[in-house]
């Protein structure tokens, strides 16, 4: 239904245009339409016929077309082999190369013999352009039928081609062997190959250099002498204009450290400056992975970057992803010399309102982390935290209280001296949930040390019944109990009140449970209760949230890969394909190719216009009238079982979200009525707080498609989430729902 008219008009144009320049334009339009996502597969036979042209421009575009639609036209492919073979004999190396590259890209089992024959010929071709294409074609051949490549003369030939003078052929041979032998751990790296490649290193492109460096990184030099030679040779390339080369050299250097442990610091010193230059000179996108790698090195050698701390300060123009990693780095490289500078910078980010809220909370956490690393400066940290709390900005107060609690847990004796006298004032200025929980915890744990401790708690108990937060209620229960055992005379009454409130007047099951539990515990054995509540806590020095040190060792092995960026070993983000998943994917692809949401009229217009420019007969104008409206009409009594609905809901391949507004507020009943009137079937509906939630479905008469959707309605705002198998239908469907509801 979608593109048949476009195809028809293209076919007509192809047949009618005889002049080469016109044909060019037509084919160009076909490629354009193809790139826009129009499925032009039905034109395959016409295009194969057109491939017999001698015009290279047309040929290139036609081959591109053939490669794209080969999969769907397997039975027609055999038609094209003649043209391919003829072109492989052409005098022009460009044509030979093009033909070989396109034919091998078809990756078709039936053509495998032709392919192998032409590739063998191509490997011997007199033009190095053709040879380099032939070398990569062996990889494609290997993917289709490995037995034709592995252990055959092709493999041997590839090894010998590494020595070729042409740098492209040489590098491509390395790449091809690496791919073909991937299951055996890639190309066998001998000293001879490494020396050969390093000798002509400067000839290669940046990409070639990166690939060679990848091999060198895995190479174990025979002697210390050789290590040093490699170091000296590659040192120059740390100034390369290509980031990929610089990082690949860094990886080689880092790997060589294992052989030259006494040069460790010197080697890292060499890498340091180029990396810092990259941070500031290459744009945000590149700076991101560079910073991630600097962070990793900093976990190993914190002092390396310590003197450069100002390089990692946040700039106003930094996007948030850079801000976070910069803060991480600052936490790692902090030492006694730069401590003040770093803390000051972090503190200024906290109060800098142009930064995101999440970032300022992140900074506060970073400050806490630094305190745990450099214990002697914790008083300065506490001062800052107190200052933040006084700012009375909710998210800052929240984060600061949590960190304050953590600092107290780390250094109870010293920090309490500063914090305890302030508790009363703090209890008056903080409002947010998490902050209150932290404060109540501190009071329960250490509140007995100040005179007014029990009374501050009592204030909270007084408002217990009005408190809506379950977290605060639970923490308060525990803290009051703790206080009771430490300061019984002042707390006795308070405990009675809170236990009564918790067990009798609460709605939250957890609060009632904990209240009852404490009540029974106390009434059974008061001394035992005391030992349970006030158990001796072990002293600790490191938070478990901090990353394990072993992780960084694994990451050092995976230097210069995605692992470092994600801070995860490859195993944790590697793609695992299940059998059914593969099938599913295929299905999805099917549905995606035959659907296209482009506007047919516009496209036709464009083609028309472009072709008209070249005076091609305007025969198709009459096709242009009559706008076709695609309408949805639903099957009146269509029914799905709840289990079927659920199944479809979970397994739908396409998902569409969109929001719209109603003219006026409606209640749940009227919604259901409107939907039913328009033949939608309501599966389930409910009211959560003030939001109406409706699950609904319907089936279109003309296309037989089923659409499922969920509506979330708050006031006049409607959030629609529709699911189905065909995205184009889904869009129409969603619009239909919106139209129905807004009318």
């Amino acid at each position, binding site marked *: 239904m979608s593109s048949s008219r476009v195809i028809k008009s293209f076919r007509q144009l192809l047949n009618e245009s005889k002049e080469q320049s016109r044909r060019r334009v037509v084919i*160009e339009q076909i490629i*354009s339409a193809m790139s826009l*996502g129009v499925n032009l597969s039905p034109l395959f036979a016409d295009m194969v016929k057109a491939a017999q042209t001698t015009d290279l*421009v047309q040929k290139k*575009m036609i081959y*591109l077309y053939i490669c794209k639609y080969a999969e769907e036209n397997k039975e027609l492919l055999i038609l094209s082999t003649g043209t391919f073979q003829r072109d492989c004999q052409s005098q022009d190396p460009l044509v030979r190369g093009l033909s070989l590259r396109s034919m091998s890209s078809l990756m078709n089992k039936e053509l495998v013999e032709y392919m192998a024959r032409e590739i063998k010929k191509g490997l011997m071709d007199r033009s190095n352009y053709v040879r380099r294409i032939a070398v990569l074609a062996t990889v494609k051949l290997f993917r289709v039928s490995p037995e034709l490549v592995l252990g055959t003369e092709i493999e041997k030939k590839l090894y010998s081609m590494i020595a070729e003078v042409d740098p492209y052929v040489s590098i491509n041979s390395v790449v091809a062997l690496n791919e073909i032998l991937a299951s055996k751990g890639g190309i066998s790296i001998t000293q001879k190959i490494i020396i050969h490649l390093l000798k002509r290193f400067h000839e290669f492109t940046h990409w070639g250099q990166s690939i060679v460096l990848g091999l060198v990184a895995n190479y174990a030099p025979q002697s210390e002498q050789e290590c040093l030679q490699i170091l000296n040779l590659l040192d120059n390339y740390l100034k390369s204009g290509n980031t990929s080369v610089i990082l690949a050299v860094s990886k080689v250097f880092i790997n060589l450290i294992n052989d030259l442990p006494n040069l460790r610091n010197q080697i890292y010193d060499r890498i340091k*400056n180029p990396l810092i230059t990259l941070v500031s000179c290459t744009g945000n996108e590149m700076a991101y992975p560079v910073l991630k790698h600097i962070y990793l090195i900093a976990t190993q050698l914190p002092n390396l970057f310590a003197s450069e701390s100002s390089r990692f300060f946040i700039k106003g123009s930094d996007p948030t*992803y850079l801000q976070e990693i910069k803060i991480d780095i600052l936490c790692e490289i902090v030492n006694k010399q730069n401590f003040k500078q770093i803390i000051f910078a972090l503190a200024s980010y906290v109060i800098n309102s142009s930064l995101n809220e999440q970032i300022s909370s992140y900074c506060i956490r970073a400050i806490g982390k630094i305190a745990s690393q450099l214990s002697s400066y914790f008083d300065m940290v506490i001062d800052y935290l107190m200052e933040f709390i006084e700012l009375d900005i909710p998210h800052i107060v929240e984060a600061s209280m949590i960190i304050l609690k953590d600092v107290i847990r780390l250094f109870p004796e010293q920090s309490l001296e500063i914090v305890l006298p302030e508790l009363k004032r703090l209890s008056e200025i903080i409002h947010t949930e998490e902050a209150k929980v932290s404060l109540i915890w501190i009071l329960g744990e250490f509140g007995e040390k100040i005179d007014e401790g029990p009374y501050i708690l009592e204030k909270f108990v007084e408002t217990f019944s009005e408190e809506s937060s379950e977290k605060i209620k639970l923490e308060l229960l525990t803290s009051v109990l703790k206080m009771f055992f430490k300061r019984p005379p002042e707390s006795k009454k308070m405990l009675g009140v809170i236990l009564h409130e918790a067990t009798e007047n609460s709605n939250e099951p957890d609060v009632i449970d904990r209240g009852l539990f404490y009540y029974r515990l106390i009434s059974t054995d008061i001394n035992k209760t005391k030992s349970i509540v006030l158990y001796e806590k072990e002293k600790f020095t490191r938070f478990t949230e901090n990353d394990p040190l072993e992780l960084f060792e694994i990451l050092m092995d995976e230097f210069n*890969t*995605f692992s470092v960026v994600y801070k995860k070993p490859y195993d944790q983000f590697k793609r695992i394909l299940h059998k059914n998943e593969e099938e599913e994917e295929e299905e999805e692809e099917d549905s995606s190719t035959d659907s296209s949401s482009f506007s047919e009229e516009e496209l036709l217009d464009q083609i028309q216009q472009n072709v008209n420019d070249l005076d091609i007969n305007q025969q198709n104008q009459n096709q242009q009238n009559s706008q076709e409206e695609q309408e949805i009409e639903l099957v009146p009594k269509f029914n799905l079982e709840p289990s079927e609905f659920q199944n479809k809901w979970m397994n739908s391949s396409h998902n569409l979200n969109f929001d719209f507004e109603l003219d006026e507020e409606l209640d749940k009943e009227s919604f259901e009525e409107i939907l039913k009137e328009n033949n939608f079937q309501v599966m389930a509906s409910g009211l959560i707080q003030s939001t109406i939630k409706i699950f609904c479905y319907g089936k279109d008469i003309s296309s037989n498609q089923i659409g499922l959707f969920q509506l979330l309605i708050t006031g006049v705002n409607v959030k629609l989430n529709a699911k189905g198998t065909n995205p184009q239908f889904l869009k129409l469907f969603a619009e239909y729902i919106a139209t129905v509801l807004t009318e």
Partner: protein
Amino acid sequence: MRGTKKREIKKKHSNKIPDELGLYLENETLKYKISNEISEKTKTWQVLFNKLKDCTLDCPPIFYEDGVNYIVVNAKKLTFCFTTVSNLSPFYLLELLRSIITLIKDFCGVINEQSIKQNFAMIHEIIDEAIDFGFPQNTQSQTIKKFVCNEPIILQKIPSSQKLFSTKEKKTVSFQATNKSIKNKRKLLQKKKNEEIYIDLIEKIVLQFNDTGEVIRSELNGKIQIKSFLKTPSHLKIGFNKLIIGPQDEKFNYMEGIIIEDCNLHRNCDVSRLDRENIIKIIPPEGEFILMNYRMSGQSVKIPFRIFPIIENISKTMITMKLKIHSDYAEHIYGSSVLVYFKVPDEVISLSYTIDQQKKNEQGSQQVKFDKNQRKVFWKIQKFFGECEKHLFCNLILKSGIENIKKLKSQIGPICMEFEIPSHSSSDIKIKSIKTIPLNNLNKKIKNPIRYKRNITFSKSYFMRL
């Protein structure tokens, strides 16, 4: 009635998803595909656009979803993306993606949706030559050119938003002059006229003052960017005004020059004569490339503007402050679109100000605005000539009932500046001479190509904490 409503919804819908183009490699076999997001319904695009849409913070340029790694680069409002399932070097892919973008730009002249749409066939061809089966081959415009057969369709109109230099001097050529394709049949015929080379020295400055006006951080990142339309292969000799010295250089002690901390260079550079004659030699490849990136810090960075704020009085009803900006560069050049802004406490409700107009003819070139929502005062100066001072006196009027005066003071600032200064380099590096010598010396008749040099200093982050 029904029809109009439908259209409205459609519009809303398409506003949410950025209407952008992209290009991506797929799976282990690294296929590439150029496609328009609107019509493309494959999972990759869905994931990418959901990510761009859902990210509450800025979307990182590298992320993974379902084991597929996405590398995303933005160029001129377009998003380009690669995907792969292998654990490759992120730098390799980012550089490759950037090279592809540069290639497209070199061939199409400009990069935007329209130019890409019109040149789909050619772009396919370029990528076919640049990447074979996911393995990069040759990404240099010059060498690829001979394999590309399609002719580019050049966009005629260039939107004004792409201008980099906002000044219009007669001597300079607008930045758009470089928006040309390296492959243009018509121009090839008029060979001699077309020999042009553009050399840009672009510096970005990062500066932070403390409350007493001392510089506590100064950094400068510079790059020399060349766009070559030379059709005759030639040597290019670029001479600098002063010696450029690296920190480890021994000469550092007794010679005068510009000390840079680190730099990286284009691979074709010949710097053997840099330390004696201040000359870099290169055989420039066609198209756009970066000759050199450098950075410096500390005292070597010349400070273009100094900020002197004086908070004269804070009372319960009003804060009076005076702001003086002094420009420190040659008299005849000027900074354009200089913007000074600072944050004020939440309690400020309105602002009254006076600007000190030094010369009468400058009137109207300055503007002061108080943005209530952002709580910021903006002061815009159209032309800020060197060696002069600008003053702003302002009274920030507070809402009543304020007690904590101390807290108020801590809420003023930082004072930030944004500016661009054409024809000025804060590092003092200047290009003294540009010479081209044809490789083939026999053919001496070739006219000297037209050479353009430009330099400009931008602010990247320039502020003072109070």
